[in-house]
Every structure is written in structure tokens, then in C-alpha cells.
């Protein structure tokens, strides 16, 4: 599983304070902890930090790439901030994210192609998050088509079918899995999929339990990666085990350690 560490996000108080006070040590610490836990990439999100988003983002990118060569997943809704951040980022880059409207896809696909970045595309359009499987599938197909038209290789695309909290959207966990299954059939090689896993348990009580069971289920449906709390050891073990059970790894008694050491 392509594990994108979610912790460098201004919605977390320690990160927010560190960005505001330009405290590199704290950010380095959060980055290292995620890398040691097995993160394949790090999500970078300034969140609700005070000050200019672009300045905060540039500082964050600069700070994180001091301690790792791993891909940075630039997480911002603002196109101009995204452009600046991609320019400043020396590591491999992932654009997080675009919606699936025509205009958004055109400019974000072009940006990804120009900058040699991977692109996460959400199945959300002008009407919002689709209510059912079909809406997600149609948008997924649009994403793939627009990517190919724009010269972006299918291997650079991650479709995010937008998981929602199970307490308020009880059918969505199933719909997301079914959308992944269907969209895996539309091209060869098929597109890849990521989700923001923590969304499935937002404002629920058993967040860890719900997260890890859903991650295992979604991996069985074909999920390739997720934005997760990589420091949740049980979550990582669940993902590794799900992949073993999907024959993505050959079994050995120490298969968890084997997976972690292969990074």
C-alpha cells in the first residue's frame, strides 16, 4: 500500500503552532516519526494556520524536504499555492488534489504534466459528492479520459472516490469500494486509487477500529494507497495483512517485518 502520512497538517495544533512560529524542529520531528513508521510519502497541508497560505506552504515544503527525499503530497485547494509549492519542491511531487470538473481537470492535468507530478483527482464535481456508485464511476472515467487527453500517464493518476463518515453516510463505504472495483476495469493498466482514510471515522468514537477495518476492506476492493496516520501501528499491520491476503506479498512468518524492511 502506498502510505501517505497525514500528520503534517495545520489542523493539528502542534503543526499549526510550528508553522506560525517557524519552528523547524517540530516539523522535522513529525516528518521523521512518519518516515520511521513506514510512510511512502508525506502530505503537506497548512490547514487553518494564520497568515498567507502560500508563504506558510513554501516554508513547510522547504522544511520537510530538508529531512527526506520521499515524495511530498502537496495538499491545498488553491491553484496558485499549488503552483508555487510544486516549483519549490525538489522531491517527487503529488498534487493533492483536483476535483473532476472540466475546467479543474484541464488545468490540473496540464500542471501535473508540466511539472512531472502525480495527480490525485477527487470524484467531486460542481454538484458536490455523488450520492451513489454510478456518479463516482462516471467521474472516474472522466478523470481517466482527461488525463490521457492531457498527456498524463495513467500511472501518474490516483482517483479518490471520496470516502465519507460512516455515521452520517452509511452507504458510502460500500459505494466507494464498488466504484473502485468498477473503475479498475476501464483501462489496462487500470487507474490507481487513494482515499483520505480518516474521513470514514470522523466524529465517530471508534476511530482506530473503523479506520483499520475499512482500510483492509478497501484494499480488498483494489485500493492502492491512502492518506493515513502511519504511526498507528495496528493500522499499518492491518494494511500489510490485507495486502498479503490479496497476494501482493508472499507469506513468511515475519511478513510484517519483511514488508516494513523492504522500504
Amino acid at each position, binding site marked *: 500500500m502506498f502510505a501517505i502520512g497525514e500528520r503534517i497538517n495545520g489542523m493539528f495544533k502542534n503543526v499549526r503552532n510550528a508553522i506560525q512560529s517557524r519552528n523547524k524542529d517540530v516539523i522535522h520531528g513529525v516528518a521523521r516519526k512518519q518516515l520511521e513508521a513506514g510512510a511512502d510519502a508525506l502530505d503537506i497541508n497548512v490547514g487553518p494556520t494564520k497568515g498567507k497560505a502560500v508563504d506558510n506552504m513554501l516554508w513547510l515544503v522547504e522544511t520537510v524536504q530538508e529531512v527526506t527525499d520521499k515524495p511530498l503530497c502537496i495538499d491545498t485547494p488553491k491553484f496558485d499555492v499549488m503552483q508555487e509549492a510544486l516549483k519549490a519542491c525538489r522531491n517527487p511531487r503529488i498534487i493533492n488534489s483536483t476535483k473532476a470538473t472540466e475546467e479543474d481537470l484541464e488545468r490540473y492535468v496540464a500542471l501535473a504534466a508540466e511539472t512531472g507530478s502525480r495527480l490525485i483527482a477527487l470524484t467531486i464535481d460542481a454538484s458536490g459528492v455523488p450520492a451513489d456508485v454510478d456518479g463516482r464511476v462516471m467521474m472516474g472515467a472522466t478523470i481517466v479520459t482527461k488525463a490521457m487527453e492531457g498527456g498524463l500517464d495513467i500511472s501518474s493518476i490516483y482517483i479518490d472516490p471520496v470516502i465519507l463518515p460512516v455515521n452520517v453516510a452509511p452507504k458510502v463505504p460500500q459505494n466507494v469500494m464498488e466504484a473502485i472495483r468498477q473503475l479498475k476495469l476501464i483501462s489496462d493498466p487500470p487507474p490507481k486509487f487513494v482515499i483520505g482514510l480518516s474521513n470514514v471515522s470522523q466524529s465517530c468514537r471508534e476511530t482506530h477500529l473503523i479506520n483499520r477495518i475499512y482500510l483492509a476492506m478497501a484494499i480488498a476492493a483494489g485500493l492502492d494507497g491512502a492518506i493515513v496516520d502511519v504511526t498507528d501501528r495496528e493500522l499499518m499491520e492491518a494494511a500489510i495483512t490485507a495486502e498479503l491476503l490479496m497476494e501482493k506479498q508472499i507469506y513468511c512468518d515475519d511478513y510484517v517485518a519483511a514488508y516494513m524492511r*523492504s522500504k
Partner: protein
Amino acid sequence: MAVPSVKESFSAKINQVTIGATAAEGGTRTRTVTIGGDTGLPLAGFEARYPNPPALVMEVSNTGADGWPPETKKHMADVAGDVGKWAAKCEQWGADMVCLRLRAAHPDEGGRSAQDCAGDVKAVLESCGLPLIVWGVDVPEVDNVLLPKCAQIAAGENCLLGTAKEKNYRTLAAACLADGHKIISESPCDINLAKQVNILLQDAGVSLEDIVIYPTTSALGFGMVYIYSVMERARLAALAGDRLLQQPVLLNVGEETCRVKEAKVPQDEQPGWGPAQARAPLWEAATALGLVEAGGGLFVLRNPEALAQVREAVGRVWPKAQ
């Protein structure tokens, strides 16, 4: 319309392992042997690179060649009582390496002392400049005294020592680390165990790049296909990035082939089988070549005619360097 390329490319490759140390490297070998390095599935020269053809190793046993098929034994009958002379003859036969089997240390074979077996290792090192494999008897109490002594006496020569198994690997791992040798990781035709022994060795401090995998071996007609299957699955996983299966593979073809009747029985017992003098080397060579196609990197053989046949056949099919 251009035909799309169907060449496969892989994200990872097989490790290269070098055995032996020349004077420049702190040993006394006249050459070193490097195996592995394949960047694709076996023999697909149009889409991958193969920097090292398989190494052909001749077996020397400190119990002699009694019980070996007559058509094989005839080649070493004059030297089988002297491991040094036998090893020297292996070099004449064109072997890349020698594999010294210390069978005499086994309780059933007289329980030759670790000290005397270490003397056998020394004799081979002195009489023959080829890189050396030293192989114990698979009795933990014996091996755990025997192999460290041999590792010590061969310190600096960068030998390949064996074998480490799931139930007994720590002592050999420590000896290899202390005296600078490579290690054979054995598992009984079991891909899960192959990974597990490698991870145990890694836990014990051995680098994954210093390991050669031994999945055991079966002769053609007697289970070679199972070995082939395990090697194929392992190779696919290795090329997809599984670091615990990226080690080159050793096959013990001579010993296994010598057990089968096709290699042994005289023609008057089985007239339809043809002359025994052709069959003994042919069964060995055919088994080896089947496993060359599975990606084997090191082949331990007994019959020098088989060695010649394998060498010639590999020469015909091995992808040329680009």
C-alpha cells in the same frame, strides 16, 4: 501503425554475489566468481540484462566417491581419496568453483572431527585456487562446531558456507560475519520458508546481499518441476521488489541426480534406456539446464562430462551483453 512494445521491465533485480578473494582482496584465490544480477525473467535477452552466466561448481567429498554411479565415479576414481588432489582435478575439468562436502563429519560416516575437517578445507585451499563452497552435514550439534572452525581456517577467502536453516542458523551466521564469508540459506522447496530464513539471517546481522538461496534440488523426473516452480515464483516476487527473494539461487544437481536409476543402471538392465555412459552425465546436465531456465545462479555438479555439456549449452543460449 506502430506495433506497441511488449517488453516487460521490472522495478528491481537479482543481487550480485561475489565468492572468493584474490590476494588484492586479502585471500589466496586465483580468481573470484560473481553470480546473479539478472534484471528480468530468465534468458529474456531481448528485454533484460544478465551480467553473470551461471557458475558451474564441482563437488568434492571427504567421504570419497563410493556409491556414486560408475560412469561418474570413473572420472575421479584416482583422486577421490584425497580432497586436495580431487579439487585440483576439478580446476582442470574447467570448474568455476569447488564445493567441499564434509560428509565425513556425520556420525553415520565416522564422525570425522571438526579439526580434521578444517584440515580438509585447508588442503583444498592450498591445492586449488578456485573459490570455495564449504558444506556441513545438517546435524546441528556437529555443524555448530564444524562450520565455525572451517570458517576460521578459511578466514579472508570469502567462501560460501552452508547451510543455514530455520531451526539452525545463528551459529553459521555468526561465523560468516566474523570471518567474512557468504552464507547459504536453505529451505525445503518452500517459498515462505525461504523468505523466513532470510529474515532470520537479517535479524542475526547478515546482509541480504551476502546470502545465496538453496531451495533444495530434485532431479529431472523426480521433482525438478517443484523446484522450478518455487524458483519461478520467487523470481517474479524478487523482480517486483521483494528484497527477501532477490538472492541468487544455488542448486545441488550432482548429488540429486546420482540417486536416480536413470543415471545409474547399466544398459543390460534397461536396454531401452541406452548406454549408461551417456545417461549419467546427460541426466545431470538435463536437470541442470532445466534449472538454468528457472534462473539458477550456481550449480553443484559431480560429473565432469555433465559440466562440459552444461557449459556448452549455456554458451549457446546465454544472452549476449549489450
